[in-house]
């Protein structure tokens, strides 16, 4: 049986030593970093590339920009090239313009002499450089802060409502035996079956009838009662021993108090999960806000983000920068909340 110290269950070699299960675990995790995070990292890099570099084949990991040089007599900086063949081999020249297969170039040290170079003979000098304008443009282009505020408002309020409403329902569905419980549960799970994409139009009609169009509430309220949340929390709450609730009842706790002081704290891991998910859902929502919100002052970041996708062209550089920017807040939220997932009640207060 050798090293049973259980790969699948143990929590690190009791005595701080690494055993094989730890090696396997770390190996797996590192592979995860490569496969899962590698592409994300690349996204991050790409957000610092200019449009041409983004479109470039084959793609390069680091963002490069062409080096330029100020040459006397020319208004704009000129691009620098190394000449690798032909007459001027070995020199470093700045290009004035290119006409067909021939480039007109100049040696920065002798600005007056124009040289003609075959375009195949030159090689651009590039260095790693961040196209920060992808980001700065965003702030110039739209009221980024306004959109940020709208997104934040929607996300925070909708998440708060979702957590509250869902956990209440989950409590009801997990800790009470009552007639209609299974029906309710089936309805909850049943409404998962129909994706929002499918009911967009009816949902729009309902929302319109309630006068919530063009208001942030039109985005917040319809999404609040996610069946996913109810289901997720309910299943978690099932694992909380009923005896603790009994104890609270003997302590003359009202049912509300039991919910608030016992069930909620004990469900923190599941609630953290739902909070994270809800934040992401609301923050990334696109289609529904697009229908509900037609006026720019109500726009969310996602709508702004998508406005880089035009009819015929997409401005990837800005879109990626915006993606990264919109990613940051939720990444922070995640990082903050994830530790609560690990606060499971390892040992109950019972025997």
């Amino acid at each position, binding site marked *: 049986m050798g090293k049973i110290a259980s790969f699948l269950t143990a929590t690190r070699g009791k005595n701080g030593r690494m055993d094989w299960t730890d090696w396997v675990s770390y190996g*797996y995790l590192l592979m995860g970093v490569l496969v899962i995070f590698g592409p994300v990292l690349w996204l991050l890099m790409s957000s610092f590339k200019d449009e041409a570099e983004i479109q470039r084949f084959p793609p390069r990991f680091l963002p490069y920009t062409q080096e330029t040089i100020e040459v006397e007599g020319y208004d704009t900086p000129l691009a620098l090239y190394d000449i690798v063949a032909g007459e001027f081999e070995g020199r470093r020249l700045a290009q004035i313009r290119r006409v067909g297969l021939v480039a007109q170039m100049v040696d920065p040290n002798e600005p007056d002499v124009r040289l003609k170079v075959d375009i195949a003979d030159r090689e651009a000098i590039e260095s790693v450089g961040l196209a920060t304008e992808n980001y700065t443009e965003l702030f110039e282009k739209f009221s980024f802060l306004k959109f940020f505020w709208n997104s934040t408002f929607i996300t925070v309020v909708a998440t708060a409502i979702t957590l509250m*409403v869902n956990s209440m*329902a989950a409590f009801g*569905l997990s800790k009470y035996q009552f007639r209609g419980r299974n029906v309710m549960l089936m309805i909850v799970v049943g409404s998962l079956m129909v994706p929002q994409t499918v009911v967009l139009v009816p949902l729009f009609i309902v929302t319109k009838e*309630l006068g919530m169009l063009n208001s942030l509430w039109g985005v917040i309220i319809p999404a609040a009662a996610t069946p996913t949340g109810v289901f997720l929390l309910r*299943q978690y709450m099932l694992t909380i021993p009923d005896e603790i609730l009994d104890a609270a009842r003997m302590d003359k706790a009202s049912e509300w108090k039991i919910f608030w002081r016992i069930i909620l704290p004990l469900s923190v891991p599941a609630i953290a999960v739902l909070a994270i998910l809800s934040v992401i859902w609301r923050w990334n929502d696109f289609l529904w806000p697009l229908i509900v919100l037609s006026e720019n002052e109500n726009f969310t970041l996602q709508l702004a983000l998508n406005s880089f996708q035009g009819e015929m062209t997409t401005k990837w550089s800005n879109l990626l920068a915006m993606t990264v920017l919109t990613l940051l807040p939720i990444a922070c939220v995640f990082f903050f909340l994830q530790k609560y997932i690990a606060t499971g009640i390892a040992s109950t207060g019972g025997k």
Partner: protein
Amino acid sequence: MRVVWLFLMPNVLLFFTFAFVPIFLNFLYAFTSGDQIMLGDRPYAGAANFESLSRCRDYLDPNTCERDIFWRALFNTTWFVALQVGFMVGFSLLTAIVLNRDIRARGFFRSVFFFPVMLSPVVVALIWKWILLRNGLLNAWLIGLGFEGVNWMLESSWAFAWSVFLSVWAHMGFYTLILLAGLQAIPRDVYEAALMDRASAWRTFRRITLPLLAPTMLVVLVLALIKGVQTFDEVYAFTGGGPGSATTLIIQYIYETGFAGSPRLFGLAAAASIILAVVLVVLTAAQFWANRRNIDG
């Protein structure tokens, strides 16, 4: 036990208004025709939409069906879900277990695995398109290693496989997180007892972890199945359903028929969504049934 309804009320109200009513309206749409958006403007069509969708000479050959794309999408979705749910649950369970260990830099690793969930589908698709393009990163790599490049996006089976991969990649973190929370809820002393009982790692997993994880597992299975069937955004942005219709999934069909198409055949789309929902209900009920022992703790 009246109080229970007080706890349920807010949710029930929201549900009724924003899930039930729309779904009911959607149901009504399924029996109308035309391209008008408002229900009132649409002529009643009886079961015509359902008939149209189900008219096939040979149900195994989509080409013989009146709505061939619907059937292709249905077949694709079946395969897609079977593969995707399997890999998804497997990998997220494995990952959750590893992340549940007392490892160093836990928060960092958790974040890593969760990161893709935060990305919008468009971006997910974009990233992987870059990697898989004819002269993308992967091929550059393969060629560097002396293999031949593959035109991943042009070969039906590869495009399909990568679509599965992509959606697992994008959503695995979600299920991992749920499972992680579920693992945390398993009392530690039960593991200690198993340790004293000399249970091997595998048996501890099989006999302790899995059964005690059952309520959570049900969440994961049900959600994975439902969301799997509903996969759309990222695959659509990735392949557009191609090559041809190789990766056209059912929601894409519904979306293109009813929402983005021209004319907008809401009725047909609604009918397709009802057929889909029926299938899902059956599958979910089966899962609940299989899990019935463990559902109520």
